[in-house]
Each structure stands twice: as structure tokens, then as C-alpha cells.
């Protein structure tokens, strides 16, 4: 698939002036007004210094490549206006770090005028102005063009053209699904968090570390263990630093581990009371979320897609999605709602908030679903099936790929393989293409039997 290019036209550059912070928007969707430049909020930020540090952190992640640092990509963050809060999201150029700043109701004093998701312009003068921002007085902020900007539109539009690599899109969407499997693992006070982050080894940013709760803080350990969290590439937490001094707590989230676990992703969240800044790290600095294959693990049947379509019409920009209420509305079991939400997550239709342990409605202003359909592993699997490389048998399948022969076998509902890729990740990155091909061939066989 060729890489798409995103063209955005902002009515004016975002700026921090005497009148306050004006964030300009472009693209995306809004609930009430169908416009190219949606307007979500006007009012005050109650903690401007912390909010601007958080906003800068999100913008910083968007421009950084943590793995093989080349010149920064410059994709704008995405802002979502929920019913009671604003969420700023970004995704690093290397597809390995996802950042989100949630401005909670306590952090906002004003009116949310519309709901939806859009891109927000962050430019160099704005960054510099935010860096210089001091003082604790509430700061006026508008997300979206104000009437003045619209009325005095004199053609000074800011056009941005940025490439949207398919893997970037896929990773941005898939990180939500991966985070939905996280549980809280540790909570540190600001002082302990500062001390812990300072103790992290500075060199060797590509290392994968593990941390276990010990006393009031976390202790680094050399091996995974139950209750531990993985800290892959500790240097990637750098974006938290400027916000650290405003934070009251650091919370860490991750999946359940055993002593045999491989590297996994984790979420590190600073909470100031009014804001939450979280960074989600991919399992290894060299691994982008795009290749994690979270959606491939449950190869979507048509019924799930139908469910997802129904559920998507019921979402209404709630700050958190209530699965039970949705199940009642849609008249379907909660498990099916959850499967549908997973599907919507990979399509960029919902995000996941680990601190609320719930999905939230957010429509990425990109065509993420298209990217998922062109997942290279899925494409490879289809090719294998089409060339008749898969021969099914009762315990699994034998897949012939060129000279090589691979055995795929069914284990506890999953499929294991003898290929090198599976050997490396053992299910940690979803099924391999041979397992996918077997799955596809099985579905095909069932349909033929009908």
C-alpha cells in the first residue's frame, strides 16, 4: 500500500497571545457542526503552567523518533472534545510511543461547545511561547477558530502536508487495543517517582528493564516476575520530565506477567489532579505498535464487523464508554460489545483510558481501518492461502512456504507455529502469517462445507 499524505489547512497558526492560547484545528469530525475547522472549547485552563508543559510533552512525542533518531517527523497532535474533558493525543514517528494529555473537568473552566476529534496545529512560535509561559493565573484557551478568526479570514491559511505511513496509522489505532489489557501495577508519590526516574540507568536506551513494586517505590529487577512491569527503553520516558514537578502521583499500568514473560508494553501516567499525562511504550524500542498484531489475534469475522458498526452509532462522545449501558441499548451480550469495541479500537474509532479502565469515543481523523486491512502479515497469509500452501489436518496444518515447511498446531484455542518469527515472540505479537493463513484456510473450509 502506498503511503497516504495528509493535507491540513488551518485558518490561522495556533498562537499564545495576550488574549490567551488559541489552538487552531483542521480536519476530523465534530458532532454538531460539519466544518473543516471544528471548534470544541472556549474557557480557561485552571493550571496553565502544567497544561502547557503537558501540551508540549504531547507535541514533543509527536515530533520524536525514539528508535534510530532521524530528523523529527512533524505530525500534529489530535484533540478530542468529550462531554466533560479535552484529550490531546500523539504518536511518535517511530511508532513506539503513544502520549495522551487528558485535561480533566477540574482543569477546565469554560464551555465545551462541540464534541469530536480533530488535528490541532502546533508550530515553532507556539512551542516557544508555551515554553516561556509562567504564572499560575488561569489562562484563556480556545480550541478551534474563534469568530474573529473566521470573520477575518484573509486567505492566510496554514497548509500542512505530511506523509501518513500505514504503519504509523496502524500503530496509533492498535495501541488502544493493547492498553485495554492493562491493569494498575504501581502508584508512586511525586517524590518517589522523581527519585525512581532519576535512578534509571542513563546509558543504553535500548535496554528492556523490569520494575517491581518495593516498599513505597519501584525497584529495577533483571527478570520479569508476577506483579512486575516492563520498562522498555527507559529513555523514552523523557517526555514526562517537564511535567514531573507538577505531578502528585505516578501510576504505572501493564499486563499481567509471569517469570517467563517476554518484553511487553506499559503505560506511565503522571496525575496532577487537573491533568493526566500518560506515555505508553512499545515492548521494545525497535518494535513499533504497528507490528504488534493485536487485532490479528482475533481475526474479525463478519458478525463482529456488523456489531462494531451498530455500536459505533451508539457512541456519543462520552468521556468513558459504559459497556453495560451499551449492551442494553444494543440488545447484545456485554462480551459481544467488548469484541466490537476492540474492532472499533483498531479502526481508530475509540481510544482506551487506562486510569478509567474504559474505552472513550474518539474518531481518529485518519483512515486507520484501511491501514489495518493492508497489514503485511495478513497480506502474506492471504497469499499463502491463495497459492494453496496450507494443508489442514485435525491437529492443525502444514504450511509450505517456498522450500520451507512449517507446522501449525492448535493449542488452547490459539495457533502455534514452528517458524522463526513465532519462535521469537511466542504469541507476544499476535499470530504469525502461517497461523493466520491456517485460520483463513479453516474459515474457507467451513464455508465450502456449507
Amino acid at each position, binding site marked *: 500500500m502506498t503511503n497516504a499524505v495528509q493535507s491540513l489547512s488551518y485558518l490561522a497558526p495556533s498562537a499564545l497571545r495576550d488574549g490567551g492560547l488559541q489552538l487552531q484545528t483542521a480536519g476530523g469530525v465534530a458532532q454538531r457542526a460539519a466544518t473543516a475547522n471544528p471548534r470544541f472549547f472556549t474557557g480557561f485552563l485552571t493550571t496553565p503552567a502544567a497544561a502547557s508543559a503537558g501540551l508540549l510533552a504531547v507535541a514533543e512525542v509527536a515530533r520524536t523518533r525514539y528508535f534510530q533518531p532521524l530528523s523529527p517527523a512533524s505530525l500534529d497532535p489530535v484533540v478530542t472534545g468529550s462531554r466533560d474533558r479535552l484529550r490531546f493525543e500523539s504518536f511518535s514517528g517511530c511508532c513506539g510511543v503513544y502520549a495522551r494529555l487528558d485535561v480533566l473537568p477540574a482543569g477546565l473552566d469554560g464551555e465545551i461547545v462541540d464534541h469530536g476529534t480533530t488535528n490541532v496545529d502546533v508550530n515553532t512560535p507556539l512551542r516557544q511561547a508555551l515554553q516561556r509561559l509562567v504564572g499560575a493565573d488561569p489562562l484563556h484557551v480556545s480550541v478551534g477558530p474563534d469568530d474573529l478568526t473566521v470573520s477575518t479570514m484573509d486567505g492566510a491559511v496554514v497548509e500542512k502536508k505530511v506523509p501518513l505511513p500505514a504503519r504509523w496509522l496502524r500503530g496509533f489505532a492498535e495501541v488502544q487495543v493493547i492498553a485495554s489489557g492493562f491493569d494498575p501495577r504501581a502508584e508512586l508519590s511525586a517524590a518517589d517517582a522523581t527519585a525512581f526516574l532519576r535512578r534509571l540507568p542513563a546509558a543504553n536506551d535500548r535496554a528492556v528493564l523490569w520494575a517491581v513494586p518495593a516498599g513505597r517505590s519501584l*525497584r529495577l529487577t*533483571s527478570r520479569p516476575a508476577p506483579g512486575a512491569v516492563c520498562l522498555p527503553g527507559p529513555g523514552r520516558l523523557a517526555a514526562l520530565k517537564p511535567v514531573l514537578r507538577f505531578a502528585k502521583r505516578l501510576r504505572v499500568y501493564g499486563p499481567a506477567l509471569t517469570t517467563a514473560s517476554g518484553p511487553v508494553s506499559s503505560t506511565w501516567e503522571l496525575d496532577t489532579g487537573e491533568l493526566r499525562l500518560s506515555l505508553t511504550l512499545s515492548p521494545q524500542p525497535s518494535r513499533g505498535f504497528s507490528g504488534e498484531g493485536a487485532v490479528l489475534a482475533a481475526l474479525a469475522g463478519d458478525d463482529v464487523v456488523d456489531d462494531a458498526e451498530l455500536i459505533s452509532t451508539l457512541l456519543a462522545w462520552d468521556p468513558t464508554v459504559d459497556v453495560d449501558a451499551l449492551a442494553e441499548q444494543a440488545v447484545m451480550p456485554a462480551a459481544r460489545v467488548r469484541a466490537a469495541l476492540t474492532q472499533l479500537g483498531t479502526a481508530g474509532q475509540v481510544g482506551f483510558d487506562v486510569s478509567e479502565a474504559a474505552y472513550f469515543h474518539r474518531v481518529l481523523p485518519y483512515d486507520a481501518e484501511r491501514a489495518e486491512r493492508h497489514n503485511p502479515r495478513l497480506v502474506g497469509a492471504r497469499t499463502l492461502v491463495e497459492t494453496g500452501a496450507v494443508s489442514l489436518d485435525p491437529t492443525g496444518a502444514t504450511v509450505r512456504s517456498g522450500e520451507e515447511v512449517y507446522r501449525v498446531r492448535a493449542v488452547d484455542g490459539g495457533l502455534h507455529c514452528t517458524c522463526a518469527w513465532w519462535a521469537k515472540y511466542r504469541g507476544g505479537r499476535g499470530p504469525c502469517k502461517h497461523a493466520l493463513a491456517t485460520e483463513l484456510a479453516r474459515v474457507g473450509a467451513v464455508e465450502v462445507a456449507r
Partner: protein
Amino acid sequence: MNLFGRRPAGPLDWPALQDLLKDGKFAATVEALRDLDEEQRAVLGKELVALRRQADTWFNEKVATAYAVAAVGCASTAAKAVTVITRHGWPWSVLQSAPVLRAAADRDVPWLGELADRLAERLPRDVVFHAWRFTADLVLAAGVPVPTGERFVDGWLLSLQVSLRETTMLDVLRTSPFTDLLLPPAFERDGIAASISVWDAPTRTYDSGPGILLAVAALVGEGRYPRDSMLDRCLDALLGGRPNAVSHGFVRFHDALAPTGPEIAARTMIYLKLLTDAMGSVATMAQKVLKTADADGALELESLLDASRTVLGRSEKGLVKAQLIWLEKLAKRLPARAAEIAEVVAVATDHPDVQARDRAAAFLARHGSAPDPLGAARDVEPDLLPGQVAAADMPDPIGSPDELAEEVAALGQAAWNMVPVERILAALVRLHATDPHSLRAALAPVMQRVDGQLGTDWWSSEAHRSAAALFTAALNKGSGLPFTLAEATRVLRGTPADIRVGNPYMKLHGVLMTRLAEVVVRLSTEPVPALVATPTQVNGLIDPAALVERLARAEREGWEPWRRDLRQALYRLPLDVDGDALRQARTLRSESGRMLVEWLEAGGAGRPEVRVVRVHRQSAERGRHLEWLPESRFYGASAPAVGSGLDPYHLTDLTPPPVVNADLGSHGWAALWPSVLPAQREVVAACLLPLIASAADLDNARGDARLLPLLAELTGPAGAATCTAVAYGLAAAQADERIAALDALIAIGGLDGFDGGELGAQLARLAGAKLVVLSRTVSQLEEAARIAPAMTWRVAAGALAGLLPAEHAGRVPGPATARSTATARSTTAARSTTAARSTAAGRADTGGPVRTTPRGLPDLLTLASAAAAASGSRGEVAGLAELAARTGSTRLVVEARRLHRTLTAG
């Protein structure tokens, strides 16, 4: 072409142009194109654009230039010209611009500017100078607006450095036609702060610094650029959290600009932000600047105090100290505001750095609001150590041939360890006896893919390669593939001790290899339905009841277990076996059963005596380079248990080498050694010691301290050898290995019979002889103190008892032999250090050169105070009182006094 190689007269046709291009005759191409009309050019252009790139072709300067000439001369649009130019060399080849511009002038190309813009957009990310220069020449020739994209700017910054041999940066900047336009966007790029080395003839040295920025500062001095905007740009860059090296460059730029009092006064808020938020060296710079502003009365006290609250919470000790001193002076100057200032200083009373805490406390005491004295009212924190934890059970055996194939495929992907190897061996032997056809069908495709070096790397030593080769041979045999038998037969003839003469620490490896060789040889000749030595626990132990059951099964089914497999099984039994298992074993009738009973009755391999001895490096001779080896090293020595115990392989008999010899190569299979003798932690520690020591005492860290957690999981006492291994590990060069050593310390720290003083004494011995870096271990002990202050205190006290007396005697602690019988030592009482003192006092002091204090000793004292306070420990440490009684205020003495106070308080 005619016979004489000349072109026939007449207009240039495509084949002729192609010849010119291939030969790189760019000047001739310019000539040939000059007189063509647009129609003729269009014909050639069409062919040129359609020409595909030849795969793997490198275009030299002439050829690439010729194609660019043709592109400008024939292409109909700028886009098509770009296609041709990028297809034939640009950006990687050098292109000459003069002929290209000549051809463009001849044709009067209207889109030359567009061509330049398009090329500027396509400059590579890591910009190539020649590509930028060609593009820049086009920009200048076309007279179009200068591109300001980041890659063009990066190229310009690079070009500034190219001609420095002949001229100075200042002149380059003065003459560059781009300076005015590209300087502003260049402040956004890291390249502007690039460190440039310039040969300084008068001093005959290379001068390095942010050359471009320093030259810009000089231009500002000449009045070419306004000071205000340059200073603002500089501060913006410093606020921007750029990489450290870039920030350092901008700090130099800032110093070169030398802002004046009024300039600083107008920007105090920005400097305050730098002080609170920027990286250490930038904050230090801001602190200095603000102090001068404060002296001039240009700083508001409220803003300063507000910022100070944040600064005093920062981790940089120097910055915090300077800030405290500043606040102290401020309080003297403004006595009326002292209370307000004291309120801010109070923030530092729980700073992680003890000196900052002291200073803050002293300030508060002077200003009447003394906090509770240090640590006086603190609760005693209990140790949170896991104690003796039973090792996890082995995962279920591999069921099917397909599962075995998957496990074999996964072998090379994870760190080498015992669990998969043993599971694979067990399944291989079982399936080969019960279902050889399915085994072959499943395993053969996988074995054809994996190479023969399982668990080794190209730098692995011979012994590790041999183990891998044997393992591969066994798997190949099970797959029905060709395999080598000779090596296995050879190994099987010898005993484990023969595997590698001269290094006794390879004995455990020998056991592994003989067992692997046995599998290779016996798999077909004497197939058995099961191995008996497969561990039941992940540390390698076998539950005695399980072994009895395995042997009973063999009796029932009428087969005899393989001999070396049985030996290994016996070595894997725990030392203390309950009577039940022995009674069950006595019901066995076979030869194997008899051996098991004999083993159990003898108490296994018994309780050998393990010591640690210091061995020196061989003196250099005949030009051999030995300096890379440590001056000396501690090795384990083991003597078999006297009067009891069976040890057919003599694994508990270890003699250290006469001189230090470093075992080179990777240690993939060493991760399996602990599982060979899981009930004898001390013997295994002695065998692993050289590998773990290499991680700490060799410059390039060839060892592997990550083996330590495996050692911690074993059973048996943790004595001198284990303590020495952990001590080396805590001082490992690599951070992740030190973390592994800390894991091991926490695992063994709570065991009955673990003596923290012993570990401390070993640490002192290593650090006192400068064999390891003490400060590395201190940072790990600090971490340990957070979890287990009492245990850490005992370790620290043991180390201090070994190091402090030398501070008075002025001598190096001499070579020492610490004895620890493998029978458990009695634990020292939590609040006493008698054991630590007796260890130190019992050491032979043979003297040595006048010593210097090991780096990190003051930190060790600080840590000891904290651990003693947290655990409520009291007592004495040899040499401490004398040190504390010394005059002076060096850190060593200050910290000694603090510890002395803590230990004698209340």
C-alpha cells in the same frame, strides 16, 4: 559513430547522446546540445525520461554530471528533470554545477528555480554536502527565493564547516549568501550547535566548540544582528529541552553574547524558568546569571522564592547546594524576610542528598524553626526480604512431536537456559523410543533451519561450542538427519574432569557434556523410554520422591537408566532428604535403586569446605600482554567433605589456578551450570566466580553477572564464595548486571545463615585492593537499603570494618583467605557488628604501598548512616571512632561523624 570514433556531423540523435552519457563526457554533451532547437530537445528528452535506472549502478562524477546536463538540456519540465537527475546519481554522487548551469543558460530554461526547489525538498535526511551544494548553486543561479526547509538548512550548516582549513568560520558566515536568510531557521536545527574542532596554530592545539554559534556571536558584536533577538533565540533554544550537547553549545553562545544587566533584568522570568526546568548545566548557568541580577536588585523576591521551591526539589546536588547558599546570603541581607525564606528552605530537609538536608537543617536551626533532628523520630523500618522461597516447578513435559519442534525452533531466540534444554532432551529421548516416525517428520524441517551452534556465538569458547555440537547431534539423530558421532564417543570415554584440563571450574560443564554425549550415543543403541535426571524444579533440583518413582517405573518396565543420566540425577537431589523417600528408595531392587540408596545414606555430595583465595597475575614475560587482566582476583577453592559424602565426578574438589587466567568467550551454556549441582550453592558459586568477576574487573566487561540470580535460587549455604560472587556482581561495569546482582542479594539476604558482614568483608577486600569500583556497589546498596535496611546495614558495617582501619594504618588490606565452612554460620544479631569486626581483625596484614581512600567510601558511610537509622541499629565499627575524632571537614570525616552519631544516639 564512424570508423574513427567521431560523431558524424548533423544533429545529435539519441544513441549518440546515450554514448556521451555513458562515457561521462559532460563537456561534449553541453557542446552537442547547444545548437539544438526545442523540438529536437523534446525528442531526446522523451527518451531520457523513459530511461530506467540500471540496478546497482554507481555513477561517478562525470557520468552523473553528464546526465544532469542532459536533463536540464532536454527535459520538458522541472519535474521530469528531477526524475532524470535523481535516477542517475543525485544525491549520492558528486555533481558539477558549472556545466549544468551552462547548459541551462544555453537553452534559457525557464524552470531552473522550480528545479532547485524540487531538489531542495528531496535532499536526504542525513544531508549530503555535494547534493546540497549542487542544489544551492541552482538556487543562486536561478535567483529564486532561498528554500528554508530543514534539510536545506541542515545542508547549509554542514557547508559552513567544509572550508575551514583555509578560512575562519567568521569569514565563511560573512561571505555566505545564505547567512541572513537561513540563520533564523537554523536556530531550530541541532546542527547549529555542532562541535567543531579548529587547529589553533599559536597554541598548537585543536580548539573545539560550537564554532558556528561563536561566530554568530562575533557577528552580533559587529552589529550585524540585533542582540535582543539573538539572545531571545538563544534562550528559546535552551528552554526547548534540546539534546545535552546542543544545550551545552547554546550555553557557550550565551556566554559569548555576555548579556548585560538590563538585558538580563528584562528576562528574569525566562532565566527563572531555565533554573527550574532546564537540564543541570543550563540551570547552573541561569543560577549564576540570576545571582548577578539579584545583586543588582533586578529580581523580585517572590519570584525567586517561588522558583527556589522547585530548585530545592531537583536532584543535582551542586545546584541545590548553590541555591541554599544563595538563600542563606539572602536571609542575612534581608533579615525581615528570613521567616519566608526559611519556609522555602524547609523543602530541602527531605532532599535525597544528605548534605543538602544538613545544610537546610542548619539554616532552619539558625532561624529558629529547627525541624526534628535528623532521623531521631523515625520509625524503624522492617526488612522486606523474601527469605527462603521454594523454586517453581518445571513446566509440564512436552507432549507431541509438533510441540517439540516448536520448542526447538524457539531455542535460539531467547537467552539460553536450562528449562527448554531439559524439556527438549526429555521429549527427544521419550519420543524417539515411542514414536520415532512422527518425531522425525516433525523435527527434520526445523533442524534443517537452525544452525549447529545452539546456545553459542561466534566468539564462544571451544567447550561451549562442543556442548552445542553435541546437543545438535542429538537432535539431528532424532530427526533422522546426518550427525557426528565421533565427538560424542570421545567425550563418553572420559570423565567430566577431562573435558577441559587446566580449568577446574569447567567441571560442571563436563557433566553436561557427558550427559549430552550419552544421549547421542545411546539414543539408538540402548533406547530408554525416559530420562531420570530431568529436574522437577526450575533451579535444577529433583524431588527425591519423583526420582524414586522414576526408578521404580524402570524396574517395573524392565529397563536400566543410562549411567551418566543417573549420576546427574543423584547430583540433583537436595542435601536433606526426609526419611520417607529413603524408605521408599530401599524398596527398589535394581542396581540404580541401590546407587540411589547409597547416595541418600551418604548424604549426597556432603558439605564441602569452600574458601576464597586471592590469586595474582603472572608477571609479564617475553612481551606477553597481561595488563588487561586484573592485578589479582579472588577464586574459589573447595575441599570435599571429610568422612562423608559421595562425589564420583569430584565436583566438590576445586583447586584455584596458580595465576589469574581469564576465561574468554561467551557463557551461553554457563547458565545451565547451576542446575547441574543445585544443592551446592557454594561450589557452583566457586565455578561461576571467574565469569562474574570478569564482569567487574575487566575493562570490556566480558563476564556475565546476570548468572547471579540463578545462583541465588539454589539451595545450600551462602558463604564466602557466594558472597564474593555477589560482591563482584554489585560492582559490574554494566548497569543491568549490577541490577541482577542486587536481585541476587535480595534473594539471599533473607536466608537463614546469610551473613551480611561476610559479604561486606568480601566487598572491602575487593575495594581495598582496588580490584573493583566501590562507588558502583554503593548505588546498588542504596537501593537495597530501601527494601532491607537492617540487612544492608550489616553489609555496609562489614565493608566499613574492612576499609576504615586502613585509613589509619595507611596500608592496603593484605591478601586474605576467608574461610567459611559450608555449614551455616550463625547470624549476627541485628544490632551488632561483632562478626564484621572479627573478620577484619582476623585478616593477615602484609602491608603494601601507602594507600589512597577508595572512591565512594564517603558515600558508603552516608549509606551506612541511612541504613543504620532506618533499621534502628546501634553498635561500633572498627576504625570509625578514630576517623570521626579527626579534625577537618573532608567529606570522609563529616560522614564518619554522622555515622558515629547515628550509632551512638539515644
